Protein backbone atom coordinates (compact mmCIF):
# COMPACT_ATOMS: atom_id res chain seq x y z
CA UNK A 1 0.00 0.00 0.00
CA UNK A 2 1.66 3.23 -1.11
CA UNK A 3 -0.50 5.31 1.22
CA UNK A 4 0.01 3.06 4.24
CA UNK A 5 1.82 5.75 6.20
CA UNK A 6 -1.14 8.10 5.93
CA UNK A 7 -3.30 5.52 7.68
CA UNK A 8 -0.60 4.35 10.09
CA UNK A 9 -2.35 5.65 13.18
CA UNK A 10 -5.83 4.43 12.13
CA UNK A 11 -7.08 0.98 13.13
CA UNK A 12 -6.72 -1.51 10.31
CA UNK A 13 -9.72 -3.62 11.21
CA UNK A 14 -13.22 -2.31 10.71
CA UNK A 15 -16.78 -3.54 10.40
CA UNK A 16 -19.20 -3.33 7.49
CA UNK A 17 -22.63 -4.86 7.06
CA UNK A 18 -23.58 -7.00 4.07
CA UNK A 19 -27.32 -7.58 3.71
CA UNK A 20 -27.72 -6.74 7.39
CA UNK A 21 -24.98 -9.08 8.59
CA UNK A 22 -21.93 -7.59 10.35
CA UNK A 23 -18.71 -8.55 8.62
CA UNK A 24 -15.17 -7.87 9.78
CA UNK A 25 -12.93 -6.29 7.18
CA UNK A 26 -9.42 -4.91 6.92
CA UNK A 27 -8.65 -1.42 5.71
CA UNK A 28 -7.41 -1.64 2.12
CA UNK A 29 -9.64 -4.58 1.23
CA UNK A 30 -12.24 -4.23 -1.48
CA UNK A 31 -15.85 -5.04 -0.66
CA UNK A 32 -15.53 -8.21 -2.72
CA UNK A 33 -12.42 -9.36 -0.82
CA UNK A 34 -13.98 -8.63 2.58
CA UNK A 35 -17.14 -10.49 1.58
CA UNK A 36 -15.14 -13.45 0.29
CA UNK A 37 -13.15 -13.67 3.55
CA UNK A 38 -16.44 -13.73 5.47
CA UNK A 39 -17.91 -16.50 3.33
CA UNK A 40 -20.22 -14.16 1.39
CA UNK A 41 -19.94 -14.79 -2.33
CA UNK A 42 -20.33 -11.92 -4.79
CA UNK A 43 -20.58 -12.88 -8.50
CA UNK A 44 -17.66 -11.75 -10.65
CA UNK A 45 -16.20 -12.31 -14.11
CA UNK A 46 -13.22 -9.96 -14.56
CA UNK A 47 -11.92 -10.23 -10.99
CA UNK A 48 -9.36 -12.98 -10.45
CA UNK A 49 -7.33 -13.46 -7.27
CA UNK A 50 -3.77 -12.20 -7.70
CA UNK A 51 -4.51 -10.07 -10.74
CA UNK A 52 -4.75 -6.28 -10.72
CA UNK A 53 -8.44 -5.29 -10.57
CA UNK A 54 -10.05 -4.36 -13.88
CA UNK A 55 -13.56 -3.31 -12.80
CA UNK A 56 -14.89 -3.89 -16.31
CA UNK A 57 -17.55 -6.60 -16.24
CA UNK A 58 -19.70 -4.93 -13.53
CA UNK A 59 -21.24 -8.27 -12.53
CA UNK A 60 -19.98 -7.75 -8.96
CA UNK A 61 -22.17 -4.65 -8.62
CA UNK A 62 -23.44 -3.97 -5.09
CA UNK A 63 -25.17 -1.00 -3.50
CA UNK A 64 -22.79 0.50 -0.92
CA UNK A 65 -24.12 3.31 1.27
CA UNK A 66 -26.94 3.80 -1.23
CA UNK A 67 -24.81 3.98 -4.36
CA UNK A 68 -24.14 1.32 -6.98
CA UNK A 69 -20.49 0.41 -7.38
CA UNK A 70 -18.23 -2.42 -8.52
CA UNK A 71 -17.37 -4.33 -5.34
CA UNK A 72 -14.06 -5.52 -6.83
CA UNK A 73 -12.67 -1.99 -6.94
CA UNK A 74 -14.56 -0.21 -4.14
CA UNK A 75 -12.54 -0.20 -0.88
CA UNK A 76 -14.31 -0.94 2.39
CA UNK A 77 -14.92 1.90 4.84
CA UNK A 78 -15.95 1.76 8.51
CA UNK A 79 -19.69 1.19 8.95
CA UNK A 80 -20.28 0.77 5.23
CA UNK A 81 -23.74 -0.67 4.48
CA UNK A 82 -23.61 -3.08 1.53
CA UNK A 83 -26.56 -4.60 -0.30
CA UNK A 84 -25.53 -7.79 -2.09
CA UNK A 85 -28.56 -10.02 -2.56
CA UNK A 86 -31.42 -7.54 -2.72
CA UNK A 87 -33.81 -7.91 -5.65
CA UNK A 88 -32.54 -4.62 -7.13
CA UNK A 89 -28.92 -5.80 -7.14
CA UNK A 90 -29.78 -9.27 -8.44
CA UNK A 91 -31.87 -7.76 -11.24
CA UNK A 92 -28.98 -5.49 -12.31
CA UNK A 93 -26.65 -8.50 -12.38
CA UNK A 94 -29.17 -10.50 -14.42
CA UNK A 95 -29.42 -7.68 -16.95
CA UNK A 96 -25.60 -7.55 -17.28
CA UNK A 97 -25.33 -11.32 -17.80
CA UNK A 98 -28.20 -11.27 -20.32
CA UNK A 99 -26.39 -8.53 -22.27
CA UNK A 100 -23.20 -10.61 -22.30
CA UNK A 101 -25.19 -13.63 -23.56
CA UNK A 102 -26.43 -11.76 -26.64
CA UNK A 103 -23.31 -9.66 -27.25
CA UNK A 104 -21.24 -12.70 -28.27
CA UNK A 105 -22.11 -15.96 -30.00
CA UNK A 106 -22.59 -18.45 -27.18
CA UNK A 107 -23.45 -22.05 -28.08
CA UNK A 108 -23.29 -23.94 -24.80
CA UNK A 109 -24.50 -27.20 -26.34
CA UNK A 110 -21.18 -27.86 -28.08
CA UNK A 111 -18.76 -25.64 -26.16
CA UNK A 112 -15.84 -27.52 -24.57
CA UNK A 113 -16.03 -25.16 -21.59
CA UNK A 114 -19.67 -25.95 -20.83
CA UNK A 115 -20.01 -27.05 -17.22
CA UNK A 116 -16.78 -25.22 -16.37
CA UNK A 117 -17.79 -21.82 -17.80
CA UNK A 118 -18.22 -19.02 -15.27
CA UNK A 119 -20.57 -17.02 -17.53
CA UNK A 120 -22.86 -20.04 -17.89
CA UNK A 121 -22.63 -20.87 -14.18
CA UNK A 122 -23.52 -17.29 -13.22
CA UNK A 123 -26.51 -17.36 -15.56
CA UNK A 124 -27.67 -20.60 -13.93
CA UNK A 125 -27.20 -19.26 -10.44
CA UNK A 126 -29.09 -16.05 -11.26
CA UNK A 127 -31.93 -18.13 -12.74
CA UNK A 128 -31.65 -16.80 -16.29
CA UNK A 129 -33.73 -18.89 -18.71
CA UNK A 130 -33.46 -16.59 -21.74
CA UNK A 131 -32.10 -13.14 -22.54
CA UNK A 132 -34.56 -10.25 -22.59
CA UNK A 133 -32.38 -8.62 -25.28
CA UNK A 134 -32.35 -9.46 -28.98
CA UNK A 135 -29.27 -11.38 -30.14
CA UNK A 136 -26.59 -9.39 -31.99
CA UNK A 137 -24.86 -12.34 -33.75
CA UNK A 138 -21.63 -10.41 -34.32
CA UNK A 139 -19.03 -11.65 -36.80
CA UNK A 140 -16.01 -12.71 -34.71
CA UNK A 141 -12.72 -14.34 -35.70
CA UNK A 142 -11.34 -17.69 -34.57
CA UNK A 143 -7.55 -18.18 -34.49
CA UNK A 144 -6.55 -21.85 -34.46
CA UNK A 145 -3.11 -21.27 -36.03
CA UNK A 146 -1.17 -22.35 -32.95
CA UNK A 147 -0.49 -26.08 -32.55
CA UNK A 148 -1.58 -26.20 -28.89
CA UNK A 149 -3.83 -23.19 -28.20
CA UNK A 150 -6.86 -21.61 -29.87
CA UNK A 151 -8.80 -18.36 -29.50
CA UNK A 152 -12.52 -18.35 -30.26
CA UNK A 153 -13.53 -14.70 -30.06
CA UNK A 154 -17.22 -15.64 -30.45
CA UNK A 155 -17.14 -16.56 -26.76
CA UNK A 156 -14.97 -13.68 -25.51
CA UNK A 157 -16.53 -11.33 -22.95
CA UNK A 158 -13.58 -8.89 -22.87
CA UNK A 159 -12.89 -9.43 -19.17
CA UNK A 160 -9.14 -8.88 -19.72
CA UNK A 161 -8.15 -11.74 -17.42
CA UNK A 162 -5.90 -13.18 -20.16
CA UNK A 163 -4.36 -9.76 -20.83
CA UNK A 164 -3.43 -9.35 -17.15
CA UNK A 165 -2.48 -12.99 -16.55
CA UNK A 166 -0.20 -13.17 -19.58
CA UNK A 167 1.51 -9.97 -18.45
CA UNK A 168 1.64 -10.53 -14.67
CA UNK A 169 1.54 -14.31 -14.16
CA UNK A 170 3.26 -15.56 -17.31
CA UNK A 171 5.49 -12.51 -18.01
CA UNK A 172 4.72 -12.76 -21.73
CA UNK A 173 2.33 -9.95 -22.74
CA UNK A 174 0.71 -12.22 -25.35
CA UNK A 175 -2.82 -10.75 -25.25
CA UNK A 176 -4.00 -7.17 -25.67
CA UNK A 177 -7.16 -5.25 -26.49
CA UNK A 178 -7.65 -3.51 -29.84
CA UNK A 179 -10.55 -1.45 -31.13
CA UNK A 180 -13.25 0.37 -29.21
CA UNK A 181 -16.91 -0.19 -28.34
CA UNK A 182 -18.54 -2.92 -30.40
CA UNK A 183 -15.23 -3.38 -32.28
CA UNK A 184 -13.18 -4.07 -29.16
CA UNK A 185 -11.48 -7.45 -29.36
CA UNK A 186 -8.56 -9.50 -28.08
CA UNK A 187 -5.47 -9.37 -30.30
CA UNK A 188 -2.10 -11.08 -29.90
CA UNK A 189 1.39 -9.66 -29.68
CA UNK A 190 2.77 -10.88 -33.00
CA UNK A 191 2.12 -10.75 -36.74
CA UNK A 192 -1.52 -11.08 -35.71
CA UNK A 193 -1.50 -14.84 -35.60
CA UNK A 194 -1.43 -16.87 -32.37
CA UNK A 195 1.11 -19.28 -33.91
CA UNK A 196 3.72 -16.51 -33.94
CA UNK A 197 3.42 -15.72 -30.22
CA UNK A 198 5.20 -17.30 -27.26
CA UNK A 199 1.91 -18.62 -25.82
CA UNK A 200 1.98 -22.17 -24.45
CA UNK A 201 -0.84 -24.45 -23.36
CA UNK A 202 0.42 -24.37 -19.75
CA UNK A 203 0.17 -20.55 -19.58
CA UNK A 204 -2.05 -19.29 -16.78
CA UNK A 205 -3.62 -16.94 -19.34
CA UNK A 206 -5.58 -19.97 -20.59
CA UNK A 207 -6.54 -21.20 -17.16
CA UNK A 208 -8.00 -17.86 -16.05
CA UNK A 209 -10.33 -17.47 -19.08
CA UNK A 210 -13.80 -17.61 -17.51
CA UNK A 211 -15.43 -18.70 -20.78
CA UNK A 212 -14.39 -20.98 -23.65
CA UNK A 213 -12.52 -18.27 -25.54
CA UNK A 214 -8.89 -19.32 -25.01
CA UNK A 215 -8.54 -23.07 -24.88
CA UNK A 216 -5.79 -25.67 -24.96
CA UNK A 217 -6.24 -27.97 -27.95
CA UNK A 218 -6.90 -31.72 -27.62
CA UNK A 219 -8.61 -31.45 -24.25
CA UNK A 220 -12.10 -31.45 -25.72
CA UNK A 221 -14.84 -32.89 -23.55
CA UNK A 222 -12.52 -34.77 -21.22
CA UNK A 223 -14.77 -34.54 -18.16
CA UNK A 224 -18.14 -36.29 -18.53
CA UNK A 225 -21.38 -34.37 -18.09
CA UNK A 226 -22.37 -34.65 -14.45
CA UNK A 227 -18.78 -34.52 -13.17
CA UNK A 228 -17.78 -31.06 -14.43
CA UNK A 229 -16.97 -28.24 -11.97
CA UNK A 230 -20.39 -26.60 -11.96
CA UNK A 231 -22.33 -29.86 -12.39
CA UNK A 232 -21.02 -30.83 -8.98
CA UNK A 233 -21.83 -27.57 -7.19
CA UNK A 234 -23.11 -24.16 -8.28
CA UNK A 235 -20.64 -21.31 -8.71
CA UNK A 236 -19.89 -19.59 -5.40
CA UNK A 237 -20.75 -22.64 -3.31
CA UNK A 238 -17.09 -23.07 -2.28
CA UNK A 239 -16.95 -19.58 -0.76
CA UNK A 240 -20.25 -20.07 1.03
CA UNK A 241 -19.22 -23.44 2.45
CA UNK A 242 -16.13 -21.76 3.88
CA UNK A 243 -18.23 -19.24 5.81
CA UNK A 244 -17.25 -19.28 9.50
CA UNK A 245 -19.70 -21.48 11.45
CA UNK A 246 -20.84 -18.90 13.99
CA UNK A 247 -21.91 -16.41 11.32
CA UNK A 248 -24.11 -18.67 9.15
Amino acid sequence: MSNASVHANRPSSLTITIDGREVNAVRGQTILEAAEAAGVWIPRLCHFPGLEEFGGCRVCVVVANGRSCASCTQPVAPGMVVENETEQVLETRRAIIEMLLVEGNHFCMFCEKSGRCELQALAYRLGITASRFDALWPKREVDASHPDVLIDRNRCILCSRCVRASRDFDGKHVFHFAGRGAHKRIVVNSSGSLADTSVASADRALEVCPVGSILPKRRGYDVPVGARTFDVAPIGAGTERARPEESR
Partner: protein
Amino acid sequence: MAKPRIATTSLAGCFGCHMSILDLDERILELAEIVDFDRSPIDDLKHISQRCDVGLIEGGCCNEENVHVLREFRRNCDVLVSLGDCATMGGIPALRNTVSLDACLREAYIDGPTVHNPLRRIPDDAEIPLLLEKVYSAHEVVRIDYHLPGCPPPPEAIWRAIHAILTKAPLTLGHGLLKYD
Protein backbone atom coordinates in the same frame (compact mmCIF):
# COMPACT_ATOMS: atom_id res chain seq x y z
CA MET B 1 -64.34 -31.34 -16.16
CA ALA B 2 -62.37 -31.44 -19.40
CA LYS B 3 -58.68 -32.21 -19.09
CA PRO B 4 -56.18 -29.46 -19.86
CA ARG B 5 -55.12 -29.53 -23.53
CA ILE B 6 -51.47 -29.42 -24.56
CA ALA B 7 -50.18 -28.76 -28.07
CA THR B 8 -46.53 -29.22 -29.04
CA THR B 9 -44.48 -28.48 -32.13
CA SER B 10 -40.90 -28.59 -33.36
CA LEU B 11 -39.98 -25.56 -35.50
CA ALA B 12 -36.28 -25.01 -36.29
CA GLY B 13 -35.31 -27.80 -33.91
CA CYS B 14 -34.13 -31.40 -34.12
CA PHE B 15 -36.99 -33.05 -32.18
CA GLY B 16 -34.49 -33.67 -29.39
CA CYS B 17 -36.71 -31.74 -26.95
CA HIS B 18 -39.62 -33.98 -27.95
CA MET B 19 -37.34 -36.96 -27.29
CA SER B 20 -36.82 -35.49 -23.84
CA ILE B 21 -40.62 -35.43 -23.37
CA LEU B 22 -40.63 -39.13 -24.32
CA ASP B 23 -37.81 -39.60 -21.81
CA LEU B 24 -40.41 -39.03 -19.10
CA ASP B 25 -40.59 -42.83 -19.52
CA GLU B 26 -43.47 -44.34 -17.55
CA ARG B 27 -44.56 -40.88 -16.41
CA ILE B 28 -45.71 -40.23 -20.00
CA LEU B 29 -48.68 -42.49 -19.12
CA GLU B 30 -49.44 -40.34 -16.10
CA LEU B 31 -49.17 -37.25 -18.30
CA ALA B 32 -51.63 -38.78 -20.78
CA GLU B 33 -54.00 -39.35 -17.84
CA ILE B 34 -54.02 -35.72 -16.76
CA VAL B 35 -53.88 -33.91 -20.12
CA ASP B 36 -55.24 -34.26 -23.64
CA PHE B 37 -52.84 -33.75 -26.52
CA ASP B 38 -53.93 -31.47 -29.33
CA ARG B 39 -51.67 -30.80 -32.34
CA SER B 40 -48.45 -32.67 -31.57
CA PRO B 41 -46.20 -35.31 -33.15
CA ILE B 42 -48.04 -37.81 -30.91
CA ASP B 43 -51.26 -37.53 -32.96
CA ASP B 44 -49.85 -35.81 -36.09
CA LEU B 45 -52.68 -33.25 -36.27
CA LYS B 46 -51.69 -30.57 -38.80
CA HIS B 47 -53.50 -27.72 -37.07
CA ILE B 48 -54.63 -26.94 -33.55
CA SER B 49 -58.21 -28.24 -33.30
CA GLN B 50 -59.49 -26.16 -30.37
CA ARG B 51 -58.38 -23.76 -27.66
CA CYS B 52 -55.38 -25.16 -25.74
CA ASP B 53 -54.15 -24.46 -22.23
CA VAL B 54 -50.46 -24.97 -22.95
CA GLY B 55 -48.31 -24.87 -26.09
CA LEU B 56 -44.77 -26.26 -26.01
CA ILE B 57 -42.52 -24.72 -28.67
CA GLU B 58 -39.35 -26.54 -29.65
CA GLY B 59 -37.03 -24.65 -32.01
CA GLY B 60 -36.83 -21.06 -33.14
CA CYS B 61 -37.87 -19.66 -36.53
CA CYS B 62 -35.64 -20.25 -39.55
CA ASN B 63 -38.33 -20.10 -42.25
CA GLU B 64 -41.73 -18.67 -43.12
CA GLU B 65 -43.60 -21.82 -42.11
CA ASN B 66 -42.07 -21.73 -38.61
CA VAL B 67 -43.46 -18.20 -38.20
CA HIS B 68 -46.95 -19.27 -39.36
CA VAL B 69 -47.00 -22.25 -36.96
CA LEU B 70 -45.66 -20.21 -34.05
CA ARG B 71 -48.33 -17.54 -34.61
CA GLU B 72 -51.02 -20.23 -34.78
CA PHE B 73 -49.80 -21.53 -31.40
CA ARG B 74 -49.82 -18.03 -29.91
CA ARG B 75 -53.38 -17.41 -31.12
CA ASN B 76 -54.67 -20.72 -29.74
CA CYS B 77 -52.74 -21.35 -26.53
CA ASP B 78 -53.23 -19.64 -23.18
CA VAL B 79 -49.65 -20.29 -22.07
CA LEU B 80 -46.74 -20.65 -24.48
CA VAL B 81 -43.48 -22.25 -23.33
CA SER B 82 -40.18 -22.13 -25.23
CA LEU B 83 -38.72 -25.59 -24.86
CA GLY B 84 -34.96 -25.90 -25.32
CA ASP B 85 -32.05 -23.74 -26.43
CA CYS B 86 -33.19 -23.32 -30.07
CA ALA B 87 -36.48 -21.76 -28.94
CA THR B 88 -34.90 -19.72 -26.14
CA MET B 89 -31.66 -18.61 -27.85
CA GLY B 90 -31.65 -19.75 -31.50
CA GLY B 91 -29.44 -22.77 -30.88
CA ILE B 92 -27.54 -24.70 -33.56
CA PRO B 93 -29.64 -23.36 -36.50
CA ALA B 94 -28.57 -19.86 -35.47
CA LEU B 95 -24.95 -20.73 -36.27
CA ARG B 96 -25.74 -19.35 -39.72
CA ASN B 97 -26.61 -15.96 -38.27
CA THR B 98 -23.03 -14.69 -38.48
CA VAL B 99 -23.04 -15.07 -42.28
CA SER B 100 -25.55 -13.95 -44.90
CA LEU B 101 -28.24 -16.39 -46.06
CA ASP B 102 -26.78 -16.28 -49.56
CA ALA B 103 -23.28 -17.15 -48.33
CA CYS B 104 -24.70 -19.97 -46.20
CA LEU B 105 -26.60 -21.54 -49.11
CA ARG B 106 -23.63 -21.18 -51.46
CA GLU B 107 -21.36 -22.96 -48.99
CA ALA B 108 -23.93 -25.70 -48.37
CA TYR B 109 -24.90 -26.38 -51.99
CA ILE B 110 -22.07 -25.09 -54.21
CA ASP B 111 -18.73 -24.22 -52.60
CA GLY B 112 -18.52 -26.72 -49.74
CA PRO B 113 -15.53 -29.09 -50.03
CA THR B 114 -17.69 -32.24 -50.09
CA VAL B 115 -20.51 -30.92 -52.28
CA HIS B 116 -21.32 -32.76 -55.54
CA ASN B 117 -23.76 -30.53 -57.40
CA PRO B 118 -22.83 -30.34 -61.13
CA LEU B 119 -25.79 -28.08 -61.96
CA ARG B 120 -24.69 -25.67 -59.23
CA ARG B 121 -28.33 -25.25 -58.31
CA ILE B 122 -29.53 -24.12 -54.89
CA PRO B 123 -32.90 -25.78 -54.04
CA ASP B 124 -35.65 -23.28 -54.83
CA ASP B 125 -38.82 -25.35 -55.26
CA ALA B 126 -41.95 -23.38 -54.36
CA GLU B 127 -42.92 -26.18 -51.95
CA ILE B 128 -39.86 -25.46 -49.78
CA PRO B 129 -40.66 -22.91 -47.08
CA LEU B 130 -38.86 -19.63 -47.72
CA LEU B 131 -35.84 -19.24 -45.46
CA LEU B 132 -35.59 -16.16 -43.27
CA GLU B 133 -32.46 -14.04 -43.52
CA LYS B 134 -31.72 -14.85 -39.85
CA VAL B 135 -32.81 -17.53 -37.37
CA TYR B 136 -34.86 -16.08 -34.52
CA SER B 137 -35.57 -17.34 -31.03
CA ALA B 138 -39.31 -17.83 -30.42
CA HIS B 139 -39.70 -14.76 -28.18
CA GLU B 140 -38.25 -12.54 -30.92
CA VAL B 141 -41.34 -13.46 -33.01
CA VAL B 142 -44.26 -13.81 -30.56
CA ARG B 143 -44.77 -13.26 -26.84
CA ILE B 144 -43.54 -16.28 -24.87
CA ASP B 145 -44.74 -16.82 -21.30
CA TYR B 146 -42.07 -19.19 -19.97
CA HIS B 147 -38.61 -20.33 -21.05
CA LEU B 148 -37.25 -23.79 -20.35
CA PRO B 149 -33.68 -23.95 -21.73
CA GLY B 150 -31.49 -27.00 -22.21
CA CYS B 151 -30.19 -29.07 -25.09
CA PRO B 152 -32.49 -30.77 -24.39
CA PRO B 153 -34.22 -29.68 -21.17
CA PRO B 154 -34.08 -32.60 -18.72
CA PRO B 155 -37.31 -34.66 -18.56
CA GLU B 156 -37.57 -33.79 -14.87
CA ALA B 157 -37.56 -30.07 -15.73
CA ILE B 158 -40.29 -30.59 -18.36
CA TRP B 159 -42.34 -32.62 -15.88
CA ARG B 160 -42.07 -29.99 -13.16
CA ALA B 161 -42.79 -27.14 -15.60
CA ILE B 162 -45.97 -28.75 -16.94
CA HIS B 163 -47.15 -29.49 -13.40
CA ALA B 164 -46.35 -25.95 -12.23
CA ILE B 165 -48.31 -24.45 -15.14
CA LEU B 166 -51.33 -26.75 -14.70
CA THR B 167 -51.45 -26.13 -10.95
CA LYS B 168 -50.56 -22.43 -11.31
CA ALA B 169 -47.69 -22.91 -8.84
CA PRO B 170 -44.42 -20.95 -8.99
CA LEU B 171 -41.41 -22.93 -10.16
CA THR B 172 -37.69 -22.50 -9.55
CA LEU B 173 -35.73 -25.11 -11.47
CA GLY B 174 -32.57 -24.89 -9.41
CA HIS B 175 -29.15 -26.48 -9.76
CA GLY B 176 -28.91 -29.24 -12.35
CA LEU B 177 -32.32 -28.63 -13.93
CA LEU B 178 -31.62 -25.15 -15.32
CA LYS B 179 -29.01 -25.86 -17.96
CA TYR B 180 -27.98 -24.77 -21.46
CA ASP B 181 -26.29 -27.97 -22.61
